[in-house]
């Protein structure tokens, strides 16, 4: 093994950077263009920029790893959550936000809620919660990249080296390109990833003697892999994962901000209908490769990405490098989108309203850039400790975001929602969930039976599901008993036909 694949990866990342710079020169330089590309994205670009944002280390490396370890049912989890549930939320939350945002020029979720409820505090709370959960998700990309490069170069590039490389590219890229740049490279990368993934499937499958032989090998090694369910995959696990991830995704800053950027309703409609097909095209080959690998004579070291190992074994080195380069570039664009949206949350919803209301645009732009660099560097340092598998870290972040969705949905559709209802509905579930994440679970004796306290799941159900329900109940309940505060204006969320 040599450093030659590293050259391919770095070359590809530089190419993506070039496209971003080109887009930057095309676009304007004001905040609306930097963060929202002036609300002018067409179907293909919107579809792929949202898609590529999902195309992260979580789906690209975590998914195949899980399929390799536990069986290919993860395809179904991602199908119900991404293909169907997210598409429906795309309409229910996304279209509604687009209608409201278009009328009043909102750029962030916090800004929209803060304006409607006349509450800088709520605005800051939503932004703070979002940044909190964004942190582990950025870490996830760095962890994935670190492992990918190590696997590809046979250990010549250490884990921290790959993680550092992608961190550096992320920071430089976000500082220079803005959303137009991110959206352009996302489109390029989304199309590229889909193509190389299918080439990889054809290559590996023909090397092992066809789809039938690959599946037979998988079943011979793990008889329960072909059966639906079993092992890790209980109905509770499938439903919990699908629901928390689908709702969580809608509240991700980078996805939520995409709801404001479509050029027209037609763009949203087309993206909505194409979504399940795109999900199918991506996840089936990616996760089946992971599952088939279980039946192949390959050695996957502890903590390594099965996809890198598989490709290194069954395809030429240059091709494996191209796939990993594509995946890393996709992870970079995911991270760029996250950092870009995160920086707009930070400057617009926290820094300007709460710290320096009269900061100049120039100063705000600098604060945004410094914030991105600091955030990415801290996430990089945290990723060195490798606190869990890609799926575990990702799932925690998704669940944290998912808790935001119920109060936001109540606010979008129910005029009688009040500021107090929102603050309690957002705040209380977050505090409870954080306690469950940070404090180790304990068991106590109550009246002769043992009861788990602070566990992450009860009877197989993710505890976040209960907090989602609690969030909705609190928002509705507190709104019902409290009265509107001064300045609240429900008409700002009214939608009209055009």
């Amino acid at each position, binding site marked *: 093994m040599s450093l030659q694949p590293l050259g391919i990866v770095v070359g590809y990342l530089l190419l993506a950077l070039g496209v971003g710079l080109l887009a930057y020169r095309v676009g304007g330089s004001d905040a609306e263009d930097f963060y929202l590309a002036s609300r002018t994205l067409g179907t293909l670009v919107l579809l792929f920029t949202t898609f590529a944002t999902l195309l992260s280390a979580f789906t690209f490396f975590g998914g195949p790893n899980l399929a390799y370890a536990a069986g*290919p049912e993860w*395809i*179904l989890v991602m*199908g*119900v959550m991404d*293909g*169907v*549930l997210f*598409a*429906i939320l795309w*309409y229910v939350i996304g*279209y*509604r936000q687009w*209608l409201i945002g278009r009328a009043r020029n909102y750029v962030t979720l916090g800004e929209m809620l803060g304006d409607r409820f006349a509450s800088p505090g709520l605005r800051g709370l939503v932004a703070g919660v979002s940044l909190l959960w964004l942190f582990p998700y950025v870490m996830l990309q760095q962890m994935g990249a670190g492992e990918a490069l190590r696997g590809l170069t046979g250990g010549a590039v250490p884990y921290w080296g790959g993680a550092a490389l992608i961190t550096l590219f992320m920071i430089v890229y976000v500082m220079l390109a803005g959303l137009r740049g991110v959206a352009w490279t996302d489109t390029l990368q989304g199309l590229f990833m889909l193509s190389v993934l299918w080439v990889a499937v054809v290559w590996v499958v023909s090397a092992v003697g*066809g*789809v*039938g032989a*690959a*599946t037979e090998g998988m*079943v011979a090694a793990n*008889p*329960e892999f*072909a*059966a*639906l*369910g*079993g092992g890790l995959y209980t*109905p509770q696990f*499938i439903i919990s994962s699908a629901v928390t991830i689908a709702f969580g995704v809608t509240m991700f800053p980078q996805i939520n901000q995409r709801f404001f950027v479509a050029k*027209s*309703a*037609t763009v949203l*409609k*087309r993206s*909505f*209908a*194409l*979504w*399940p*097909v795109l*999900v*199918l095209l991506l996840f*089936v080959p990616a996760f*089946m490769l992971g599952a088939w690998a279980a039946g192949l004579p390959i050695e996957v070291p502890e903590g390594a990405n099965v996809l890198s190992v598989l490709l290194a074994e069954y395809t030429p080195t240059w091709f494996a490098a191209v796939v990993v380069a594509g995946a890393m570039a996709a992870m970079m664009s995911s991270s760029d989108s996250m950092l870009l949206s995160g920086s707009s949350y930070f400057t617009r919803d926290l820094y300007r309203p709460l710290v320096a209301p009269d900061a100049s645009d120039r100063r705000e732009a600098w604060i945004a850039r410094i914030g991105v660099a600091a955030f990415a560097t801290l996430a990089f340092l945290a990723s060195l400790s490798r606190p869990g598998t890609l799926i575990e870290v990702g799932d925690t972040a998704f669940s944290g975001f998912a808790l935001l969705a119920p109060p936001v949905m109540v606010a979008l559709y129910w005029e009688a929602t009040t500021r107090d209802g929102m603050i309690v509905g957002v705040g209380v579930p977050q505090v409870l969930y954080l306690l469950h994440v940070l404090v180790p679970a304990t068991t106590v004796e109550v009246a002769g039976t043992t009861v788990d306290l602070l566990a992450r799941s009860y009877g197989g159900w993710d505890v976040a599901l209960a907090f989602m329900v609690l969030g909705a109940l609190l928002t509705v309940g507190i709104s019902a008993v409290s009265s509107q505060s001064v300045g609240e204006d429900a008409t700002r969320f009214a*939608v*009209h*036909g*055009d």
Partner: protein
Amino acid sequence: MTRSIRDWLWIVVFATLVTFSVPWFLWGSSTVVAGLPVWLWWHVGWMGVASVAFALFARTGWDRLMGVETAPARGGDP
């Protein structure tokens, strides 16, 4: 705002699409058809069905269900 039967029908369609994204009736089945588990074929077909249903909804029910329909719509594209 009153909901028409067509609105409710769409809500039922969405609920059905979500519920059977996982083929619960094939739970435990390990039948392999044409090289892939049979539940994977269901997934492939179901995503196709979902896409067609979403396309139909975008064409006919999109603005009505959101309550923003004003003039009688003439198809989807402007």
